[in-house]
Every structure is written in structure tokens, then in C-alpha cells.
């Protein structure tokens, strides 16, 4: 069995027993990336020199009997929306093509302290907006299970690099499903922790009240290993919760008795693929076989999830992305050409006797803003900036933003009620399996429905995990979503682990040449 087919937990044991060195392991992954990534295009940038240097440094420490961190030299891929000091961080946008943060995100600091080897930055939808990774300004990542299909998004690179065994662990972000949905479509395990569980400091904001960093891995055990490093209160993030982080790996070894499962009625309605419905039903039966009791529950306001999300997220995005104006941050249009064009426009208007129009032309500064943003952002980002700007405008605020906040509260209450009856909530992660590239590119609404089952967790702030629970006839992975109450990640991981101990869907890897 190839080294790369092992789980991160197994590899960590090999590193700790010095059966394999971090440098060897890192080199093996770099080789795999070199071989397969030209097809998959999961990485925007690979960091071979710094990764190998760090791996060797960890190996030397281990050889000298000095302490080594929790991740012990395991390579970790990082979504390119998380700031890495001295390394370009693009958010897959032309806007930030050359942005080099002078600081590390808190999670990057934590990963470094835990002796992770940062192997590369993964592709994503521009500014994490999208569900297919086709919105990247640089490349479209392919689904390793079928290269004609999308890997999901926005953390498409983060999920695809795992599916193609190009990393043992990867860090993604989830605003409306951006970890869970690609995890489902790529057949890996991906968790969105409770809002506030992981520091957002250094995560380039899309929608601040929804964004959350989380782990992607092959197994629940691996995800628990990585989450333990990422989680924890951060004084640099006011919204990070000062709640104790339990020992997630230890929790997995605890027996889980009398688990009460809620199956969401609303998630089995129109739009759900039949094969997915069957696989999820089978998973519920599997749980019952394992001693859990299942009951149908309702999240009555979940049908408003997408509408609510597509008000709140664009509102926050329109504000968070204002700083990319070509003055302080981001791409700047060719100023000389811009000024010349402006002068020409003015001259033409004056010549035509339209002095009033000439006077009303943009000032050079305003034109600089307009043109830099027009050229620097992709269409989906612009769409959301416009949606948000509109919804926050005078006269519309109450009807859209304020109303959305009210519905958000109702959705949160739905979860509160449900969790009074059950420990975890089960359902499909996505309505459909991975679709063909380009299929929904011109149908934003269809793309938005990809988040149908995942957005409510972000709106309510609770955590959720997606784990593989089967395959379609055309051999595309199917994801099972498990949601747990706020800060009950341990319970969520335990429930998911229970399933993985009884099934082997998570052990399958895409076969690529």
C-alpha cells in the first residue's frame, strides 16, 4: 500500500515511530502533486522549498529528542483565503494576485506551532463565492473522481487535493457550505465548526458573521486531529468564543450510547437526487443498527435559508470587499490609460457642446475606483457586491437586511427546538452529486441551491460535518451531513466516527494516473 493511501492519523504514528521522516513524506506528496495536479489543478501555489525546509527542521528536532508539535511533520494544504506571512495570498482573485500579507492568520500560527508542514495554497472560488471552484480567476479545479466534473466549492481545491491524495490534511473555510459541499462531492470528510470556535483572524473576510475555518481530511479521526490544532479562543478575534476546547481525539474513543438522531423532514423534498436520498436513508438505517434511535424532525424555516443567506452574505461581502479599491489594496487599473481615456471623453463631450455632461464625468479618483474594481473582480463577486449594496441602501435596508436578520433568528430557534429532542441532525449534504463543469456557470440561482442543506448551519452558527456515505452509479461520492449544537463538535465527531467505524466509504480514493 502506498504511503499516500494512509490516513493522517496513521502517518502521524509512522512519523512518531520514525518509520518515515517528515522530509520523506513531504517529498512523496510533492511528487504526487507534480504528477497529478496538472490534471486536478487543486493548488494555486505549491511551496516545495519552505515545506521541505520545515520538514527537515522537524525531523532534526525529533532525532535530537526535542519536543515536536501535535501534527508532528504532517503536510497540510491551506485554502488561499487564509493569510500566510510572506507568501502570496490571492483569494483566487485577480484583485489580490500580488498580495503578500505581512502577517500570519492565527490558524497558520497555530499550525506552525503544531509542526504542520505547509505544503501549498489551494484553489477556491474567488473570495470564497461559489459552489464549484469555477469562479477562481486562475484555474478551474477538477473533481478527482471524474475530471469532467466540478469538485464543489468554494473550498474545491482543499477537497480535491485530499481526494487525489495530494495532501493528508487540508484547511478550508465555510460560509454557506464551502467545506461540507466540496467534501461531499469529493468523497472526503469536512467539518464546519461552530461560529467562534476557530479564530477568523487572518481569514480574508467574505461574510464575517458566517465565515468559519475548518478541517478537511480523509477520516473523522483525522479531522479531529486537525480541529484540535485550529480551535480555541483568540484575543485578536472579538467573535471567537472563549469556550474550552475538549480533547477531540480522546472523545472519539468514548463509547457513544443512546445516540438520538433527528432526520430533517425538509431535506428530503423536491430537488433531492434519488441516489443521494437512498444513500442517506441507508445511512440512517446503519445508525439504527449501531444502536441509535432516529426520528423525523422539522426545521420549518429552513426553506427560507437560501433567501436569507443571499441577503446577509452579500450585504457583508459588499462592505468587506470595499477595501479593494485600487488605492489601498488590490489590483489597480492602468492609470495613464485611464486618465487619457477620461480626458478624451471630456474633450469629446465639450466638442459636442455637452458641457453639463462633461462636468458630470467621474473625477480621476472615482474613475480609478470604478475601473480598478470593474477589472479586478470576477462576475460572481460583482454580482454579490451589487446585491449587498442594493440591499443595504436607504429605503431597502428594512425590507431586506433587517428582515433577513429576523428570519435568521427564527432559523436559529428551529435548531434550538430540534436539539431539545435529538443529539445530532442528519441529512444529505448536497441535493445533487458533482455536476459537469460549466453546467451551472450561467445559472447562478441553480448554483446557489447547492447550499440548500448547508447554509442553515452557518445562519444558526452551529457546527456540521460531511462524511462519505456512498456513491452514485456513475461512481460519484455522496455526502452525509451531521449537525450538532453549538460547541458540541465532540458529539458531532463522535457520531460521524461511529459511522466510519462501521463503513468503508471514507477509505476509497479516486484513481488517477
Amino acid at each position, binding site marked *: 500500500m502506498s504511503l499516500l493511501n494512509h490516513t493522517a492519523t496513521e502517518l502521524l504514528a509512522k512519523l512518531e515511530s520514525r518509520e518515515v521522516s517528515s522530509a520523506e513524506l513531504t517529498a512523496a506528496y510533492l511528487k504526487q502533486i507534480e504528477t497529478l495536479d496538472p490534471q486536478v489543478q487543486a493548488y494555486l501555489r505549491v511551496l516545495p522549498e519552505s515545506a521541505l525546509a520545515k520538514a527537515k527542521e522537524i525531523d532534526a528536532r525529533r532525532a535530537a529528542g526535542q519536543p515536536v508539535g501535535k501534527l508532528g511533520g504532517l503536510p497540510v494544504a491551506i485554502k488561499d483565503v*487564509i*493569510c500566510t506571512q510572506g507568501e502570496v*495570498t490571492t*483569494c483566487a482573485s485577480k484583485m*489580490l494576485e500580488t*498580495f503578500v*500579507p*505581512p*502577517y500570519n*492568520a492565527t490558524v497558520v500560527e497555530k499550525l506552525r506551532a503544531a509542526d504542520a508542514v505547509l505544503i501549498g495554497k489551494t484553489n477556491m472560488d474567488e473570495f470564497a463565492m461559489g459552489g464549484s471552484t469555477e469562479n477562481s480567476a486562475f484555474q478551474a479545479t477538477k473533481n478527482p473522481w471524474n475530471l469532467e466534473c466540478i469538485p464543489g466549492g468554494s473550498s474545491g481545491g482543499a477537497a480535491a487535493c485530499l481526494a487525489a491524495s495530494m495532501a493528508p490534511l487540508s484547511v478550508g473555510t465555510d460560509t454557506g457550505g464551502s467545506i461540507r459541499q466540496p467534501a461531499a462531492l469529493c468523497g472526503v470528510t469536512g467539518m464546519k465548526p461552530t461560529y467562534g470556535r476557530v479564530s*477568523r*483572524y*487572518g*481569514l*480574508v*473576510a467574505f*461574510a*464575517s*458573521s458566517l465565515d468559519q475555518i475548518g478541517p478537511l481530511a480523509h477520516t473523522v479521526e483525522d479531522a479531529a486531529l486537525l480541529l484540535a490544532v485550529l480551535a480555541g479562543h483568540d*484575543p*485578536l*478575534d*472579538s*467573535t471567537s468564543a472563549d469556550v474550552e476546547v475538549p480533547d477531540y481525539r480522546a472523545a472519539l474513543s468514548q463509547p457513544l450510547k443512546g445516540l438520538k438522531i433527528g432526520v430533517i423532514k425538509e431535506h428530503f423534498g423536491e430537488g433531492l437526487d434519488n441516489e443521494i436520498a437512498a444513500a442517506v436513508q441507508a445511512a440512517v438505517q446503519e445508525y439504527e443498527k449501531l444502536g441509535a434511535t432516529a426520528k423525523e424532525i422539522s426545521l420549518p424555516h429552513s426553506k427560507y435559508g437560501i433567501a436569507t443567506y443571499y441577503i446577509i452574505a452579500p*450585504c*457583508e461581502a*459588499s*462592505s468587506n*470587499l*470595499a*477595501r479593494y*479599491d485600487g*488605492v*489601498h*489594496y488590490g489590483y489597480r487599473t492602468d492609470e495613464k490609460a485611464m486618465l487619457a481615456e477620461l480626458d478624451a471623453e471630456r474633450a469629446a463631450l465639450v466638442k459636442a457642446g455637452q458641457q453639463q455632461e462633461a462636468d458630470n464625468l467621474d*473625477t480621476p*479618483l*472615482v474613475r480609478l*475606483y470604478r475601473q480598478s474594481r470593474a477589472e479586478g473582480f470576477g462576475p460572481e463577486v460583482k454580482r454579490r457586491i451589487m446585491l449587498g*449594496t442594493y440591499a*443595504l*441602501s*436607504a429605503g431597502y*435596508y428594512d425590507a431586506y*437586511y433587517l428582515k433577513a436578520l429576523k428570519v435568521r433568528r427564527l432559523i436559529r430557534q428551529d435548531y434550538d427546538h430540534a436539539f431539545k429532542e435529538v443529539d445530532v441532525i442528519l441529512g444529505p449534504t448536497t441535493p445533487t452529486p458533482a455536476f459537469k463543469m460549466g453546467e451551472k456557470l450561467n445559472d447562478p440561482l441553480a448554483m446557489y441551491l447547492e447550499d440548500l442543506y448547508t447554509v442553515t448551519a452557518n445562519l444558526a452558527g452551529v457546527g456540521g460535518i460531511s462524511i462519505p456515505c456512498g456513491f452514485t452509479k456513475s461512481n460519484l461520492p455522496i455526502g452525509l451531513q451531521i449537525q450538532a449544537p453549538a460547541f458540541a463538535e465532540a458529539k458531532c465527531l463522535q457520531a460521524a466516527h461511529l459511522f466510519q467505524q462501521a463503513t468503508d466509504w471514507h477509505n476509497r480514493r479516486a484513481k488517477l494516473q
Partner: protein
Amino acid sequence: MSERPYDIVIGLEVHVQLKTRTKLFCRCSTQFGLSPNTSTCPVCIGMPGSLPVMNREAFGLALKTAVAINCHIPEFTKWDRKQYYYPDLPKGYQISQYDLPMSEKGWLEISDPKGEFEPKKVGITRAHLEEDAGKSLHDEVAGKADSRIDLNRTGTPLLEIVSEPDMRSPREAKAYLTELKLLLEYLDVSDCNMQEGSLRVDANVNLHIHNGEGQKIATPIVEIKNMNSFRAVERALAYEAQRQYEVYQETGRTIGQVPKQTRGWDDQAMVTRGQRHKEESSDYRYFPDPDLCPVITTAAEVEAVRNNLGELPAQLRVRLESTYGITPYDSDVIVSQGRPTVEYFVTLAEATADGKRASNWVQQEVLRVLNETGGAISDFPVKAAGLAVLVKAVIDGELDVSRAKEVFNDMVATGKSAAAIMQERGIEKVDSSALKALCAELLAASPRIVADVKAGKEQAVGAIVGQAKRKNPNVSPGEVRAICLELIQEM
């Protein structure tokens, strides 16, 4: 009181830079005058991925101020983003407070010691916290139209205090600003330096014109900016009132017929000028900042702040007047100098048991010297206790006021005590029998004067007083005069 055919209606917006060590949402220093862009970090320059964390110290200073201006402090307050594009605003929004400010509905009492207007309470609509923007430095030398941005100031905590349109003259506006500044100084929450920008004032002004039929017609509201001193505010308001009246007479335009205008004060030309209105300035698309948590302030916390305010100017004036018997004018002068001067005065008044005399000495001597030297009272070489010894000597008749002032000047110049200087100058109280003997001797030598006095020309005794002072500079003129008159009667 006014003969004008209109009332001036004035509301003021005051931005106060709070005296914190670090900025409102990051740990950068707020020190003034550092070289450009050196006091910055990812947070205050809005670097992608950075997040704000509220500075508790800033909130504490804001709370103290809000309580001192009699504001109601809601239990819940939150942060909002005010969104607009400007080169000195790196995030594309300013973190401010919109619909739920940290304080509202307060007042500040103003009065004029010269009685030019009746004392009144000026309403305070709200006081809220926000972060300052950076500074744009426009360098248009040689037509290069180069603009440079200094982001050191970005993120400095500002308290915006918005008054009700309760002021009716430029003089009242100035009194409000003076009283507010004094209060802020007593609270020690701001440097209040208009030159350095730690206190900034914008004014909203319009007129209510009497139409002669008992009705009042409001003119369009104008906001005046760029006023760099309280005097400038007073002048700009006076100018603007006259200008608005003239415009009204010309155009007849009333409020609502034209949008609110912004005008800048030109201190050289002494005029206000219309400013080009900012692009899309009308819709800031405020919404709650999702990066920050709301702030909860309990009633107990507000009470604790209230109990620790110390004695504030208005209370101090009343206490000085009632305890030491000084006039409102005098108490105003002393209190306006700040807490150390008040303490100086109180020590002096207590030690001499003569408030009026203490007030005179502080105002005519101590403050005069400080004015001349530009020093602070804390560094003044003559401490209140030391001055008290001298003033008491005057009260006890050991020396007269004019000699005492000479002694005082020596004390300031040398730092020596009153006793030491009086000894050096040979100043001592003349024994009463010796004084009587001296008077008798001088009267015996001047029968003319004795005769004049006896004839009713009492002022003739002044010549004897002069002679006595020449013989012994320590004699008290008053005493000499009294003794001489007594002796003459007995003759």
C-alpha cells in the same frame, strides 16, 4: 435682547480625540507627530483578514464623558459600519455607531459671567464613539496634484458629541464650546488641542426670520467646517448668519427648498465658502459591524463612573462662591484655569481664612506671572502654603500690599520663602509704643499740620504718613494715620 429681525439657530458637532495610549481597535500608539505611517498595523490599515478588537480604555473614557454631560447610558450599544470611499479610509468604511449610540439625551449648562445671555441648558442629542480616518496631504506643487496619505491617525478613538440646535447666538456657541472643553479637561479624557486636531468642531446653523406677522420662517441649514479655533467658530457663525439673511432677502429660499449645504470657513478671508459636495455622501449604508460584539453597560457600572467623576466645573464654581464668598466672575476665572489652580486657590483661602483676598492674589499675581512666563501652576516656584504666609502677614499688618507684592516678586524670582525675603528686606512689625512715639515726634515738629487737621482738613495728615514711611518703611500707613488723628484730638 436682540434687535435683529431673526433668531440664529445653532447646533454643534464636536469630535473629541480621546486620550488613550492605543487606538480604538488595535494596539498602535496614538501619539501625535510620529513620522507618517509608522504607527500602523494590519488592523488599522484594514489589511485583508485583519479584525478589530475594542479598546476598553477608550470605551471607559467615552462613558465618563457621557455621564458628565448628563447623558442616558443605554444598557446595550453596538458598532456600525459607515460606508464611503475616500483615500484616507482604508477599509472603505468607518467603524462608528448609528442607531444605538453608547449615550444620548444629555445636557450641558452654559452661562456668561458678564451676563450677556441668560444661563441655559444646551441639550445633547447623543455622544457616540467612532474611529478616526487618516490624513490626506495634498501636494499640488508644480501641478503634480500628488496626494499622500498618512494613516497614523486612522483608528484613533473619537467621541462625537452632537448638540441640539439650542444655541441662539455665536456667543452662546462659544460658551458651549468653552464649557465643554473645560469639562473634558477636568475629566482628563482629551488633550483638546484644536491645532493637533484632538478637538474638532462643525456647526449647523440657520435662521428663523420674523416675518412681521408673528410667524418665523426657517432658512436652509448650512453645515460649517474647517474652523480651527473657538474664535473662528464665533466669527464664522456671525458671518454665516448675516450671509444667510442676505441670501434669504435675495432669493426667499426657505428650509427644504435646497439640500443641506456644507461650507468651509476661510479664516484669512473671514468668509464661508461652499464646498463641492462629496460623491454619494447621502447614503452611508450603515449596518452592524459583524466583526465586533455589542457592548453591555450595567446601571451599576454607570453609577460607579458617576461616583468617580470628581468635582466638575459647574459644581466647583458654586462651591467656591458659597464657601469662600467670591463672585461668580472670580470663581469662573479660577475654575477655568483648571483643577491645579482651584486647588492652589483653596489652599490659600483656607490658610488665610480670606477667600476674597486669596482670589485677588491668585488672579492678580499668580496668574499674571504665569501668563507672562507661560508656565504651569504645578511648576510655579511659590506654593500656595508659602504665599499664605505672605498674605497672612498683610492681614496682620506686618506689611502693606504694595510691599507684599515686591516680596512676592522676589519669592518668584528666587524661590525663597516670604519670611526669608521679609527678613532680608528688614520688614518687621513696628512695636505700637514705638509707632506712637514716632507719630508724636513728627506731629510736634509740624504744628501747621496739626492746626489744619484741627480746622477740619483731615487729609493734611497724609504728609505725616509720608514722613513716617520715610523714617521707617515698615510702618503701616493706615495705623500711622489713625494714631496721628487720635493724638491730634488729644492735643
